[in-house]
């Protein structure tokens, strides 16, 4: 598969842009997804997770399980920002999870 980090980040930024209506340029790696300064509401966050699940399966050949106990306990760190979510998806590809 060999999808680069930049391609993964581009995908996440594109999804956040589409879901929030923000210009793509306004969505950066540092854009916050959960917590006080989040740019995305909880319903759209679920849609982002669903899109990421599909992306992981179709493009990375990996399983992004965000509903298991372990995934939920890590969710706040994984979902902290566009970059952290992108890095997590990249790590799934590397481990072949």
């Amino acid at each position, binding site marked *: 598969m060999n999808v680069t980090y930049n391609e993964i980040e581009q995908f996440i930024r594109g999804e956040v842009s589409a879901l929030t209506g923000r210009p793509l340029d306004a969505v950066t790696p540092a854009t916050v997804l959960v917590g006080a300064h989040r740019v995305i509401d*909880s*319903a759209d966050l679920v849609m982002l997770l*669903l899109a990421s699940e599909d992306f992981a399966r179709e493009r990375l050949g990996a399983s992004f399980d965000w509903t298991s106990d372990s995934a939920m306990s890590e969710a706040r760190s994984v979902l902290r920002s566009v970059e952290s979510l992108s890095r997590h998806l990249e790590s799934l590809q590397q481990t072949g999870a």
Partner: protein
Amino acid sequence: MDTVVVTGASRGLGRYCAEQLQERGYKVVGLGRAAVADAPFEIRAADVTDASSVASALSDLRRDAGVYALINAAGIASMNLVVTTPPDTVRRIIETNLLGTIYCCQQIAPALMRRGSGRIINFSTLGVPLGLKGEAVYVASKAGVEGFSRAFAREMSAHAVTVNTIAPGPIETALIAKVPKEKIDAVVSQQIIQRQAEPVDVWNIVSMLLSPEAGMITGETIHVGGA
């Protein structure tokens, strides 16, 4: 062909609803504690009290845009005074009726979100508003289902998915097979419509909630016969 997932599909109200759905052209995927050979629809074995069992039984449907509805009919009851109900029985009732409903919703909701429409129908009991003696644990589990459904309806509304609860009184199924007739009559006498409901009465409400015309009905508990 729309798919409807029905838990508790091997018998009782779940089986009845699943058969009605099958006859009306829906693809039915049933969940039961064990696969059933004589069912006219697919039944997958799963333990609804175990999230991983539910997940593995339904994993292929999680991304299936053909899934239109989930009917959580799996349930157990144990009529007993609270102080004489063994802790294991208490846990089993709560796990099956409340946690089972939640686990199945967690598994199927993503498919409905992707689709952008759908129906979730959960089951409670008239015992909740009537506060029936000897059913406190069962009532607790079902009151939990009602509260869960109301709050979950808000989460799902952005995706045009409705979440409602049907609360029947005593209906002739295996669930109440050991309950004496006088006790059943006593419950029925407290309904607004003092007639023991039949499975078709429940199906009529299920059918209505599944219809496109019910798209603005959500977060509600419908008491069969009134309470």
